[in-house]
């Protein structure tokens, strides 16, 4: 179902909390659970429900904003941005991706594994 954001935090993970929030929101956007124009919970709501520091959420949202996934409106509403990247960003992401794919190939990860992992995030795949 679209429209709902689900965030699960593991305080014992090596990944810092703000990074866990960041990647789960990006994943929600990629999988279509969050659509452009959807409003994210406010900083204080997210901090309250997850019972974590306000600044941790702020750090995650600020990073999402800088990376162009969300936009800050009227100083307090965080809105999911349209799904498009400018040429520079596209180039940067593709370079990063290439590096990861090369590493994966070098470590013997098969094309099929990468294919099944990535397919669900693109149209025509089994995206919900």
């Amino acid at each position, binding site marked *: *179902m*679209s*429209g*709902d*954001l*689900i*965030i*699960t*935090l*593991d*305080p*014992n993970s090596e990944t810092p909390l703000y990074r866990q929030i960041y990647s789960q929101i990006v994943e929600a956007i990629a999988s279509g*659970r*969050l*659509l452009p124009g*959807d*409003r*994210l*919970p*406010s*900083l*204080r*709501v*997210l*901090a*309250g*429900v*997850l*019972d*974590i520091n*306000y600044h941790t959420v702020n750090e995650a949202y600020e990073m999402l904003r800088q990376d162009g996934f969300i936009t800050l409106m009227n100083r307090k509403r965080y809105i999911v941005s349209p799904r498009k990247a400018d040429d520079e960003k596209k180039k940067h992401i593709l370079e990063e991706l290439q590096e990861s794919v090369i590493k994966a190939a070098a470590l013997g990860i098969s094309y099929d594994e990468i294919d099944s992992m990535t397919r669900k995030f693109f149209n025509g795949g089994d995206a919900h």
Partner: protein
Amino acid sequence: MISAFAQFYFVEFLITAITGLAVSLIPYMTERSIVFGVRIPSGMIYNSKLTAMKRIYTLSVIAVTVSAIIVSYALRYTVYPVIVSTPIVIAVAFLIYLPMHLRVAAMKKDMGPIEGDRTVSAMVASGGLKSFPWLYSLPGLVLIIAMFAVGIVYYPRIPVMFPTHYGISGIPNQYSEKSIFAVLFMPTISAIITAFLFVLAVAIWRTSFRLDYGVDDPVSRARIFRSRTVKFMLLVSAFVDSTFLISAFTEWGIIGPFNLMVITLPAVLIVVAALLLFASTGQMGSRIRIKEGNGAADQRILAGEVKDDDKYWKAGVLYVNRNDGRIFVPKRFGVGFTMNFGHPAALALLGAILSLPVILLILIILKL
């Protein structure tokens, strides 16, 4: 023919009985990780002492409910009007709850803190109003429009003095002078209440909440729970509107004579519907039967323990958290939502709700 007096008591006892039953069943309706308002570690869920306490609570509250009905029936000719048996049952139930809450808190303390390497937080947040059940707000809206339309069309035919208050026997004991304000008073109040409930429903639709663990598919449960709660609120406002419509039509002389049974029927239906919803859904959907294989639950959610949040819950029932931006939070001991009393907007809303009867009173006095 049953007397109006008997009808009044019948409705009163029915509401007390249903409310008492609902309150008595609360321990079986809460999230699994919450017992008597205390967040318990998974190791305590099947504790036999807790099972026994739940049973004692339920039986005690049922006994209190039955006693309250018997006592108020015995006092029926001396105390009037007896609309206090329901609040009394709720108050006594709380007094039974409180020592049990403290007992569970002490048991948990003996077991040591929940915080450990399996502590996880998870939440569901609504993305927006695109999927809001707008259709459910339609019946209320239609009733309000109908009330205003009929009131305006029928206005010339309403007598110069028309009845605005009825005794328990159904005979008018108060009349008002005809004016647009006096005639459209009922529809206006109805519209205000409907608008208020609608705003509450939207706020609850948009709220975020924490998920419970150790249950199948807590995400679907939470969504179904939220959806049913909001739909119920919208239908409640339609029921309230229908009561106002019947009252208004009686005042205007379109239908009549005044019948207490008809006027209180929506209230009884609401309470019955609430009980059914309550028993079939449970808090956060804890009682919903989830189909096998439907549980695409996050493995991290299934494996985790809930982060301890007892410190924000005073006596296990009052949520006070200044760092939480939410106004509405799911209840801990009960089914539905309560307010975050650490949020300034919640306090303002509470003030508004409490002042609503005062405003109504002023309006009624102004009208006379």
